């Protein structure tokens, strides 16, 4: 099953889904994903989730396997980078070793929680099907992918919180991982801002600023200002505080389907 078939299968169940998967997501795939990706297998965990009726609540096991797959992705990414000679600039080696340590801990924790139900580690392609050909030679590309993975992770966990509301302890674990991913994302984004000399690239997400665009888009894009029915940009007490700051103040969720669309091209095959 390839990524487009999955998108199509979502659409069959819910005709509006393609519209809700941000346009930039589809455009990005069309433009960037090489033909090798058309043959890519998608992890069974993702496939089984997406094959369910759109909007059906995934089981706790499915959510944990979804999280485990993302943690495998992150851990593998940093494991490789941290073992390459002269790739990560010396001043940032502590930062990326610390991030790797946490991703490894998350993998171990989730595998222990899932036991025999845990999915295996897939094979990954960090060039994203050729879209990032210099992922392992250009630190700027590497760190751009890093920010994308961390911000996607934050949004992915946030998107599943509601599905865990009747499993309070699992919910708490998910929140405890979620904030660690946000700590990572903040520093990685700030390092990008420094390296690019871009003061608007901050630890927090202004509007939907970041790359690739799909990571910051979605049904509830990072630029959203309405929360629990309240438009935070019109709050009486915020005075002249800008809409940019309002968007920075709230991070937004991604659905499982949206995360699949973003992460799918990193995944070459399941073991």
């Amino acid at each position, binding site marked *: 099953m390839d990524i487009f078939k999955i998108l199509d299968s979502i659409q069959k169940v819910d005709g509006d889904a393609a519209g809700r998967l941000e346009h930039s997501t589809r455009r990005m795939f069309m433009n960037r994903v090489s033909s090798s990706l058309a043959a890519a297998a998608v992890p069974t965990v993702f496939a089984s989730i997406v094959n369910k009726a759109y909007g059906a609540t995934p089981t706790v096991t499915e959510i944990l396997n979804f999280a485990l797959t993302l943690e495998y992705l992150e851990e593998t990414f940093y494991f490789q980078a941290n073992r390459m000679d002269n790739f990560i600039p010396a*001043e*940032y080696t*502590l*930062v990326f070793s*610390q*991030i790797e*340590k*946490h*991703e*490894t*801990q*998350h993998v171990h*924790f989730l595998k222990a929680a899932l036991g025999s139900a845990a999915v295996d580690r897939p094979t990954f392609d960090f060039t994203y099907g050729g879209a990032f050909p210099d992922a392992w030679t250009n630190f700027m590309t590497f760190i751009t992918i890093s920010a994308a993975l961390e911000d996607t992770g*934050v949004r992915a966990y*946030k998107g599943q*919180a*509601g599905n865990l*509301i009747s499993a*309070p*302890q699992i*919910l*708490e*674990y998910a*929140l*405890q*991982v*979620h*904030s*660690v*991913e*946000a*700590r*990572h*994302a*903040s*520093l990685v984004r*700030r390092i990008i801002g420094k390296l690019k000399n871009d*003061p608007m690239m*901050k*630890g*927090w997400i202004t509007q939907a600023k970041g790359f690739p665009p799909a990571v910051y888009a979605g049904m509830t894009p990072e630029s959203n200002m309405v*929360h*629990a*029915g*309240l438009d*935070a940009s019109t*709050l*009486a*007490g*915020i*005075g002249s*505080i*800008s809409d940019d*700051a309002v968007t*920075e*103040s*709230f*991070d*937004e*969720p991604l659905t499982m389907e949206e995360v699949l669309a973003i992460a799918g091209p990193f995944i070459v095959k399941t073991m």
Partner: protein
Amino acid sequence: MKKTLTQFSDSSDSVMLSKVNRRFFLRSAGVAATTGAFIMGACTEQDLMSDDVVDLGSGDFGILNYAYALEQLEAAFYIQVLTTPYLNMTDMEKWILTDIRDHEIIHREFFKAALGMKAIKGLTPNFSQIDFASRTSVLGAAKLFEDTGVAAYNGAGKLIEDVNYLLVAGKIVSVEARHASAIADLINPNALEFANGQIDENGLEHAYSPSIILDGVSPFVMDKISGKNLPS
């Protein structure tokens, strides 16, 4: 508590900061029960409803008031930081602290609006232990507030009944974690501290119950805050 903040201003050793934070919470956890017993023993129900004690209330509104109380403190702190900037605050530090101030004001006003008539009153902060002229003291206190905020939201998530409010808490906690990371990195750049100390060997960040958090922040508020009716 006084001693703790004196230590903040005496040293920029962030390893010590994290130790102080751990002690701070450990000690808070230890005295929480005692404090609760004291309030209950010393006051009648009528007293608890008086102006002397701010009751956060029960259910989801209680949790929203709990968040509102914490955001009030954070906003007041950063407003003071920017009103009386410490010596030699760099432009970058000023941008970051201004952003955070604005975010906390937005959070505060969001909860106030969401709560409407159920909102607690405006709290009176007590920042007498923070030396606003000292970078070390200010950033140490900022780190404490951000780390506390993250642990508070992480611990409150499972107490929320309405999935919409749970999502809002999720939207805010990751922004607090982004703040915590940035502040820790200002204290000790490109080191482990952006994500250290508050995270256990499973890679899980702290999650604390309201009683621990409320006791931990009590030195920074003039008002007595009661979370006795909060869900647990």
